[in-house]
């Protein structure tokens, strides 16, 4: 019973981190139509920023600075936001496919920097000794972070800002003709979403107590977040939450099943889990392309 509760706390904490990633992506893709396939970059930068700031001083990497966790959260969001601003300023004026290309490139560059710049990140050995709160404390921290994030993104959606970024997503030319500074709105949505991804990264660092470059490969840094959002319902924040918990639940359950297969099939079993996530995506796209919880019709203030 106790171990089940322990597993529940562990599961919800981890899924909560992904929920924040999915909410961040929802601001970018769901609201605004920004095709960010480099989520891992912002996730990783947030995680490493928090790690470097909060670990005790170490000869293996920059810092650490031994700062409190909260400083790590704030600066992680800021660094991710600045990175998004830099990339956004270059790409968001161009046609939309440029952001896709630039963001996937950024994610790879970030991963390679983490792997090779040993003075900064301790290379492939990663950063250890990141402060880890007790699992219950961490659970509370994640829960608060998810709720605050949800409140923020939902407020933004149900505002004239949310309405205008949706219009930018739907018809850029008409939004321009209606006097909207399309680039500014895209930039704001991109920076906002990326800052949330940075927060998710910081939470992840404290959850694991360790960060290394492998955690931010495209599969778990980017792809799975997309599956979560699309399965849950792009444009719908509750959908993003449901998608995160559902996909992560599926992944956890199959992970448990995978421990039951004979060890000689372990590699195949873990590959099969990834395939299963892909199958889920295909099934959703075929039978419920708008996701489990579709985008609500009304946007902006006032009743639905």
């Amino acid at each position: 019973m106790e171990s089940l509760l322990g597993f529940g706390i562990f599961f919800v904490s981890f899924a909560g981190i992904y929920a924040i990633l999915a909410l961040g992506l929802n601001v970018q893709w769901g609201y605004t139509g920004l095709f960010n396939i480099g989520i891992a970059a912002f996730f990783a930068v947030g995680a490493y920023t928090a790690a470097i700031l909060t670990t005790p001083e170490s000869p293996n990497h920059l810092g650490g600075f031994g700062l409190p966790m909260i400083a790590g959260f704030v600066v992680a969001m800021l660094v991710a936001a600045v990175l998004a601003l830099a990339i956004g300023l270059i790409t968001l004026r161009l046609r939309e496919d440029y952001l896709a290309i630039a963001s996937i490139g950024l994610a790879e560059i970030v991963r390679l920097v983490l792997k090779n710049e040993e003075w900064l990140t301790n290379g492939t050995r990663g950063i250890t000794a990141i402060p880890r709160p007790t699992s219950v404390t961490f659970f509370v921290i994640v829960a608060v972070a998810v709720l605050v994030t949800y409140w923020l993104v939902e407020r933004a959606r149900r505002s004239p800002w949310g309405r205008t970024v949706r219009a930018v997503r739907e018809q850029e030319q008409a939004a321009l003709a209606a006097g909207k500074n399309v680039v500014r709105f895209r930039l704001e949505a991109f920076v906002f979403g990326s800052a949330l991804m940075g927060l998710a990264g910081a939470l992840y660092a404290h959850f694991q107590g360790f960060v290394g470059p492998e955690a931010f490969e495209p599969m778990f840094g980017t792809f799975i977040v997309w599956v979560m959002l699309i399965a849950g319902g792009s444009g719908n924040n509750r959908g993003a939450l449901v998608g995160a918990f559902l996909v992560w639940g599926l992944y956890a359950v199959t992970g448990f099943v995978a421990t039951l297969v004979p060890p000689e099939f372990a590699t195949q079993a873990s590959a099969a889990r990834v395939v299963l996530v892909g199958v889920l995506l295909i099934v959703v796209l075929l039978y419920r392309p708008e996701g489990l919880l579709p985008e609500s019709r009304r946007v902006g203030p006032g009743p639905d």
Partner: protein
Amino acid sequence: MNGAERSQSATPILVVDGIELRFGGIRALDGVNLEVGRGSITALIGPNGAGKTTLFGVIAGFLRPSRGRVVLGGEDVTGLAPPRLFARGLMRTFQIPAVYERMTVLDNLLMVPGPQAGENLLTAVFASRAVNREEKAFRERAERVIAFLDLAPVRDNYAGQLSGGQKKLLELGRVMMTDSKVVLLDEPGAGVNPTLMKKLTDSIRRLNAEWGYTFLIIEHDMDLVAALCDPVIVMAEGKVLAQGPMASVRANDAVREAYLGSRSVAERVVAGP
């Protein structure tokens, strides 16, 4: 006072002066000069490929001319971006209706006024009271527009579900959400059934007379043009051919020739630089 007298006596609110624009070797606009009188409903007609929509793009800031000036209300606005032109009271619509498909008719209207306090992300999230007050005024205006254009039955539908004619009305509705002075309508009558067409022309006329909007309208439906517009400006091959009341334009030899297409597109391409 009839339309002809009015348009001649009016001071121009929009002046297009020697606009040239090239796409590669093709001279899409080849020294366009025209004036739109304040308070007029001016038509811009001409055969396909004459450069009408391209000229709209230049006037509204979507395309940058290689030469020439656009003067709006006495101010040189050449090369300003669309949002800045919007701020100076100019709004355009599109040949293919550019509605926000996955937004309701109401939201299509509400997004137009601007800049809105609630479009600032921080204000939007943390200062909802100011936003709501402003929103209330927009809401009232949007409801009036919906009533004016008989869009009440589809008010909460996604704009993507509207018929082509209703989308044209919605575009006009978006114009009505602004305090624009000059409105460029690109083929407002295309794909509109006769009943809606009546509604559309009535609306344009009322917006002109009661709201004080100046219209420049690209249109192929000559009945609509004759009923609504004066003067009529004729473009062909990137130039203004003729300008004046419908009757005089119809009688113009150059105009007849342009519409019959005695000079082929191929010849124009060859003649390019």
